[in-house]
């Protein structure tokens, strides 16, 4: 079922690229991975937190804005489907919301931009590295379930950057 009109949602206004009324930028894996590595190398866990929080806050407001244009999308299932479609259409990867509810659950991602980019630039990691995806998941679920920002904590139980078969995220209430 086609829930959104992507041709309409992704547009240009002069030199700006707009997604559902908000300005976006296209960046490649070199920049996204460079930023992540620089933050981790320079300020460690604080950098990891910044990556998580930026993705969480922006995905929260981004999805909220998106859904405000589609009042007919009412069910949780439909909203999660839209979120997953946006993730894929933005080139961020594939995210399966299968075992998730109002209080948390588990999510699986078989592929992502950050995994592909990290492995291409730096090879295998020794620790989970999908900080962007964790933040994105938290923000999206907070928007879908009408929770405030920072309601969810997201832990990465398995990570393809460590050569696991898939990335697996555990979502819990804080």
């Amino acid at each position: 079922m086609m829930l959104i009109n992507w041709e309409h949602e992704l547009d240009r206004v002069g030199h700006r690229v707009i997604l559902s009324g908000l300005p976006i930028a296209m960046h490649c894996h070199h920049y996204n991975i460079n930023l992540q590595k620089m933050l981790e190398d320079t300020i460690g866990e604080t950098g990891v937190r910044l990556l998580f929080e930026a993705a969480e806050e922006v995905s929260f407001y981004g999805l909220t804005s998106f859904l405000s244009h589609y009042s007919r999308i009412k069910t949780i299932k439909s909203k999660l489907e839209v979120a997953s479609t946006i993730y894929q259409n933005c080139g961020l990867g594939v995210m399966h919301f299968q075992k998730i509810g109002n209080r948390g659950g588990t999510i699986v991602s078989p592929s992502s931009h950050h995994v592909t980019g990290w492995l291409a630039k730096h090879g295998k990691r020794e620790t989970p590295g999908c900080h962007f995806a964790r933040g994105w998941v938290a923000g999206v679920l907070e928007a879908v379930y009408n929770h405030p920002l920072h309601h969810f904590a997201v832990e990465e139980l398995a990570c393809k950057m460590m050569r696991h078969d898939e990335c697996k995220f555990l979502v819990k209430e804080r």
Partner: protein
Amino acid sequence: MAIDGSKIIHAVMEGSRIRDAKGIIPLFGVYLSLFFVQYYNKLSFDFENEMGRERQSESAALLVEAAQECGYATFHGIRTSREWEELVRPMIELKEDQIFSFAAVAVAFGWGDLDVREIIPKEKLVIRVSDSYEATGYLHLRGLANSGKCYMLRGVSGAFMDLLYGEDYPDGCFTFRTEEPFCRAKGDSYCEFIARKTSFKRRA
């Protein structure tokens, strides 16, 4: 000028709508992502904030370096891609036309309205931007700045020159260094980036 930026913008917009079954957008030789500029602004300026005033110049240098190394790899990938060969190469008459093409790609990516004002081959590049998302973001998130805040565009401007006049890829990165004497984030009416050759090159 031989470069038709609108063709490049059209190609990027069309290409950005095509992703594979894994949700990856391979375009112009790189993996592309689309995300809100607010993410990049929050990340950069929160990082700067965490580093504190004492380490302000270090945080700025790290953000510029991350962008310059990225710009160097990205635009090398772009100019060796099939899309470049088919679409852009036929428009290039002079070596410096590559800079105009790089700028058109950056506009297509939503980085701002890059306007190449001056190129002195092997020496200097001047790019002016009246709507950089970084300057807009800083003003929105932090208010008026006391220094230039367009770290990504600073790094990328240097990378453009590195690719044209530095040693062959991958040894030419950081041959040029960019300053931002004017920035809307500090109250100027536009942002300006001036890349000049450095007297010594740091290792990438």
